[in-house]
């Protein structure tokens, strides 16, 4: 019993069991701390849809609306801009919006213009790479980042390019097209962003 070279098995087992139970309790205690860092109830509740009035939007102009803390762009595309989208077809990585469909492109936007109505583009203005908000480069022509530019958005953070349908160019850091949020037309001049009502 008092031989120091001999391990007292039952005591050793008690130590092991104690350490196990104590360790489990310590890990259990860490859970509430980690969970306290998740979005609070208030942050979760702030996801309500917002309404945008596009009555004043001239052709070729962009309107930015804040939805869930993110910029949502509404661009009234001209005929020229729509033709630019067709021209970009071969340069974009995912022309048919086939990637991550359910997440990025609602059913009604899975067309070449990625919108309900060809005239109006509605996208979340956050680059799919690392979350910068790209800049407007609507004018077609030669640009430093693309010799034969047909109009779209340029993300200066890491050089990603998007056409005027929010489709990402090939061989750029951004992997995906810009996200089309759920939206619906309340009338011809009012868009509800964040909810797609049936029949609109």
């Amino acid at each position, binding site marked *: 019993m008092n031989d120091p070279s001999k391990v007292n098995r039952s005591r050793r087992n008690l130590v092991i069991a104690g350490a196990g139970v104590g360790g489990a309790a310590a890990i259990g205690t860490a859970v509430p701390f*980690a969970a306290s*860092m*998740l*979005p*609070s109830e208030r*942050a979760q509740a702030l*996801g309500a849809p917002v309404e945008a009035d596009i009555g004043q939007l001239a052709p070729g102009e962009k309107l*930015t609306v*804040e939805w*869930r*803390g*993110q*910029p949502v762009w509404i661009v009234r595309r001209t005929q020229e801009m729509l033709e630019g989208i067709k021209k970009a077809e071969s340069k974009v990585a995912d022309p048919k919006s086939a990637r991550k469909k359910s997440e990025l492109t609602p059913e009604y936007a899975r067309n070449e213009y990625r919108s309900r109505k060809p005239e109006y583009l509605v996208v979340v*203005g956050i680059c799919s*790479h*690392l*979350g*910068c*908000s*790209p*800049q407007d480069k609507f004018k077609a022509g030669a640009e*430093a*980042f693309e010799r034969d530019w047909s109009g779209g958005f340029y*993300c*200066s*953070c*890491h*050089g990603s390019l998007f056409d005027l349908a929010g489709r990402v160019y*090939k*061989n*750029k*850091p*951004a*992997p995906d097209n810009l996200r089309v949020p759920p939206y619906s037309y309340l009338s011809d001049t009012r868009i509800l962003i964040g909810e797609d009502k049936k029949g609109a």
Partner: protein
Amino acid sequence: MAAAEKQPVTGAGPLNGLLTWVDQRFPLVSTWKEHMSEYYAPKNFNFWYYFGSLALFVLVIQIVTGIFLTMNYKPDAAQAFASVEYIMREVPWGWWIRYMHSTGASFFFICVYLHMFRGMLYGSYRKPRELLWVFGMLIFLCLMAEAFFGYLLPWGQMSYWGAQVIVNLFDAIPIIGPDLAIWIRGDYVVSDATLNRFFAYHVIAVPLALLALVGAHLLALHEVGSSNPDGVEIGKKKDPKTGIPLDGVAMHPYYTVKDTFGVMVFLLVFSIVVFFAPEMGGYFLEHNNFIPADPLKTPQHIAPVWYFTPYYSILRAVTEEFMWVLAAGVIGMAGLIIWSVERAAIKVAVAAAALVLLGGFYALDPKVWGVALMGLSTMIFFLLPWLDRSPVKSIRYKGPITKAALALFVIAFIVLGYLGTETVTEGRTLAAQIGTAVYFLFFFLMPWYSRIDPCLPEPERVTSK
């Protein structure tokens, strides 16, 4: 009792009695001797050996100025920007304390980068100082975290979008990424919740870790003793009578005096920057950060602060086309390792790991690999003690291959750092990709080139003019 056996303290005049009282209850004299008056450091330290003590000095500046900044700063998205401006304009001497803190951040990195470069020059990470180097690297990682969290606090445009980009890096991790990013932010976008928690990390969590690691770094240093520009162990040649290394001098007074001189020169340079160029032309405090954060609009040109730009360039360099270079690199490395090692099990494991990586290159977005490579570029320094197989430690006795490799690495690091501050063009992306390749080849090929490099013999004793 041990207390009664201790010799009374002598030589402190009227304080002898007090110090004796303390010493009998606390290891005062023994600690002082072990770490200062009888800690022997090589006598041939040169210029490069200033930066360890200077980094410690900057840490003190940051802690002191930081405490005073928290007295007026408000970690609230609605008030943060204004509270910093309040400190700058209305708090007496607030501008001075704030500029010391912001300039101190950049000087911290200058000192730490030069301190690390010293380690690379003279092989300070080599056996038995591997753990010392690992502690140092952990300090470096903590310092990067500290700088990143602190940069959000002024809640300017660069604060906001910088945090947005860095937190979104975690979003790239397969499967758990998106939820992890939400957990880090505490919201779906960078918001008040993010600012508030980053404040907690910046003022208490990371500094505690940093101080503990600095303690461990110093304890490890004093356990193994300092290396020196010749890379020879002074402990091998001791005075037979006293047991003191022949090439060693006591930390105090010799190096305490030398380091005090270093601190004075440092303060001169530091003060010039604080008083005359605290923004350093946009490198220390970026111009866009004088605009309050706007979640709807990214500034035209965003770049991290200079000390993060080399890694940021590496992140940007990984495009779809660059994945082929990466794949070729992995195949080449695997071939080289398989050809070099003897054991069949290792050969199989390396081949399997290479196949997994190649599969991953194909299956996952280049974005994921950009993030992975960026992470690796900051972590890879950890491996230096094991990658360097040279028979000598110091650059003084290393051969031309190692010298050229180190020079190329330094050039790549600086070029990547410069490119990271600039916008993207095709030419710059190509330059960043070449820089990235050089950066990693320096480390990955080291086990081979450091071994075949013709080195000079190390001297028996340290050399000095």
